[in-house]
């Protein structure tokens, strides 16, 4: 079945900088923004952009992700001629290997891509929160007659040295690429979203694989090799909200952004819906004494206490007299009466005992070093326990260092 364009979604990374949150699941499966998981964003972008065939490359702890994606039906990716396909590493007659890098993951699935004989392949990663019309990027790629198009956005000059930076000419064609340059020549940062002409990519992937010194990575190897060879490389300027949620702080930030459409992340806007596999539960109930302010919540939740500046996933319980502020609560978390949760990320199905105190405000912590308090999924705290700011606990309630 010939397709003009298919997408390959890199979802195999561990996301080690999310520490205990990704202890038992891959980063793209981490809950976000109340009712979503991170992978809902690229999957929904695909379906909204008219891409109906998506390969999801999985490797690290894929079970939760696999079961979440299922048939792909929530994203309309269960069509008869395409749909979403989970692609783990596999054995061949001469053995097989784990995915060695982003480029190698695609290389190992050349056979899958060839099934659809596409003209263009969009490479996406599973750790970004953004709404983007990939069809516009593909149009730019075609118009530029490029072998590769890289989506870029302007970042503040002061932060440019943290990104992969592109230097471009007057036509926005890429002239130079530098990974985390000390003295950036531009402030156009790569967003890790690529469109390739499949013929060219196939060639470079094969060449890259044959090079024993390569790390088989798009940013480090394939893109520089293409640039050095004089391939036409276009930049596609993206404007709008985009955030890499690869760290605990950025994950927390992006959740807070969701509460304020001014941030650019407007999830109530239905012209570009983000789809999710939703749980079956009755609407949320807000009790008579509840005080919920500047917060988002979801179905199945029962809120009897105070919730401020927080994002609550489905089936969250906040008991009477409890207070949750500036926190992100993942599905099924229970905060028992009288407990306080501040500046924290609580993983799925955490249970906070009565009168516990989890986390704290930066002001009250000063002059001690402050940080977000993070609890692994299924972590259960006994009554009256205190967890200081910046502490991270695993599922058994043991402290883990960052």
């Amino acid at each position: 079945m010939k397709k003009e364009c298919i997408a390959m979604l890199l979802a195999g990374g561990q996301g080690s900088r999310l520490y205990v949150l990704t202890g038992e699941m891959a980063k793209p499966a981490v809950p976000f923004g109340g009712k979503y998981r991170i992978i809902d964003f690229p999957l929904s972008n695909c379906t909204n952009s008219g891409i109906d065939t998506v390969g999801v490359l999985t490797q690290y702890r894929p079970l939760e992700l696999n079961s979440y994606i299922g048939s792909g039906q929530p994203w309309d990716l269960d069509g008869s001629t395409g749909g979403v396909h989970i692609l783990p590493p596999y054995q061949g007659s001469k053995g097989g290997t784990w995915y060695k890098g982003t480029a190698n993951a695609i290389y190992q699935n050349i056979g899958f891509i060839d099934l659809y004989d596409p003209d263009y392949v969009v490479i996406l990663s599973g750790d970004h929160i953004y709404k983007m019309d990939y069809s516009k990027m593909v149009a730019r790629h075609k118009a530029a007659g490029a072998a590769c198009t890289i989506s870029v956005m302007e970042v503040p000059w002061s932060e440019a040295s943290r990104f992969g930076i592109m230097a471009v000419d007057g036509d926005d064609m890429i002239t130079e690429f530098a990974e985390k340059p000390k003295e950036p020549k531009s402030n156009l940062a790569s967003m890790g979203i690529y469109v390739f002409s499949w013929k060219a990519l196939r060639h470079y992937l094969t060449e890259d694989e044959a090079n024993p010194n390569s790390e088989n990575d798009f940013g480090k190897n394939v893109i520089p090799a293409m640039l050095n060879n004089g391939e036409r490389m276009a930049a596609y300027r993206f404007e709008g909200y985009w955030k890499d949620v690869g760290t605990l702080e950025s994950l927390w930030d992006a959740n807070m952004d969701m509460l304020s459409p001014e941030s650019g992340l407007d999830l109530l806007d239905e012209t570009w819906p983000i789809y999710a596999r939703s749980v079956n539960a009755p609407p949320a109930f807000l009790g008579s004494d509840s005080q919920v302010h500047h917060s988002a919540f979801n179905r199945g939740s029962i809120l009897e206490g105070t919730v401020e500046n927080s994002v609550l996933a489905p089936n969250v319980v906040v008991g009477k007299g409890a207070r949750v502020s500036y926190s992100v609560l993942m599905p099924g978390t229970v905060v028992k009466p009288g407990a306080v949760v501040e500046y924290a990320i609580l993983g799925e199905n955490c249970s906070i005992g009565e009168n516990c105190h989890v986390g704290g405000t930066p002001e009250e912590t000063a002059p001690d070093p402050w940080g977000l308090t993070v609890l692994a999924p299924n972590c259960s705290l006994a009554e009256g326990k205190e967890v200081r700011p910046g502490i991270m606990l695993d599922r058994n309630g043991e402290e883990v260092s960052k």
Partner: protein
Amino acid sequence: MNGLHGIIFSYEKRNDLRELSEIRSAASIPFGGRYRAVDFALSNLVNAGCTDVGVVLHGRYQSMVDHLGTGKAWDLSRKRGGLRLLPPFNYQKDWGVMPFRGKVEALAGVRSYLDTIRQEYVAMMDGDLVVNLPLADVYENHIKSGADITVVCGNDSFATADGTYYEKDADGRITEVLYNLNRPRGYRGLEVYIVSTALLKELVDECTAKDQFSWRRDVLRAKKDTLNIRCYIWKGFAAQIRSVQEYYDRSMQLLDPAIRAELFCPERPIRAKGADKSSTYVSDNGRCVNSLVAEGCRIEGVVENSILFPGVVVEEGAVVRNCVLFKEDIVRRNAQLAYIIADKDVEVLENRTLMGHATYPIVLAKGSIV
């Protein structure tokens, strides 16, 4: 447990639902913040292991057909069996132009469908019943008791429009079938029945031959002495949505945690279509208490003792008390609402005030602008 087939009746009946039923049958009335009444019957059947469910439709069923789709939300989109939509198709002359006069006529209208039923037993339910029945248990009881027909009754004689009430002996056998009662007595029939497929077809054919159309009169009442008709008493919440008042009172009962715990018990989940909306947001100045709130709402004003369906917007300064607001309703700045049931897509403009009363909730028709 695949011996049970489901039939849901969703045809127009005489009721007092005013504007709410102008555009839909009672079975597709939104209820409880994210459901349609028929979701309960469907979920009851699916939770009891039914894989095949027929929905008998007649009149104003566009909304119903739209809601049911392929039956995916209830896992009834299947290769074999699954959901069957049954608009009347056994027309004889003008027959079928008028609304069905009773369940037997409705079944006669889909008589050839009855022949395709693979299962030995049929559970029949009304689409306007909001309940979470342990139907598997009712079925098991039916088989054990050797009943010809099992009638499920509520444990009260709550007055519902056009209700059927039963009296039974100590043994559980039905001794009297009552309707058109001024003051209801006996056990309130929930219009849920279990009967063998063979007997059902026999009864439909016999009644049709005698030009009889009423299940309760021509079957239950007429045959209470010859057939073993037994009742199953359900002690929990069971609402029949047949008047605006009943709709309102029953909706407000959902604010009671005990009733929610029972109606939405996790062992028998009530399934509904998702709404692909974001989380609900309450702003800094917003206040929302003692309310049931679905997703995608934006609350900047005050909401008390109310039920909000997906996508409702309550702007700053607006006050919503004791209301049921359907999908995508907008209450503009400083508007005040009390005891209102607002159908989908209603917009209440700035500074407007509308008050009903607990004993006379006001219904705003779909798409109205106040």
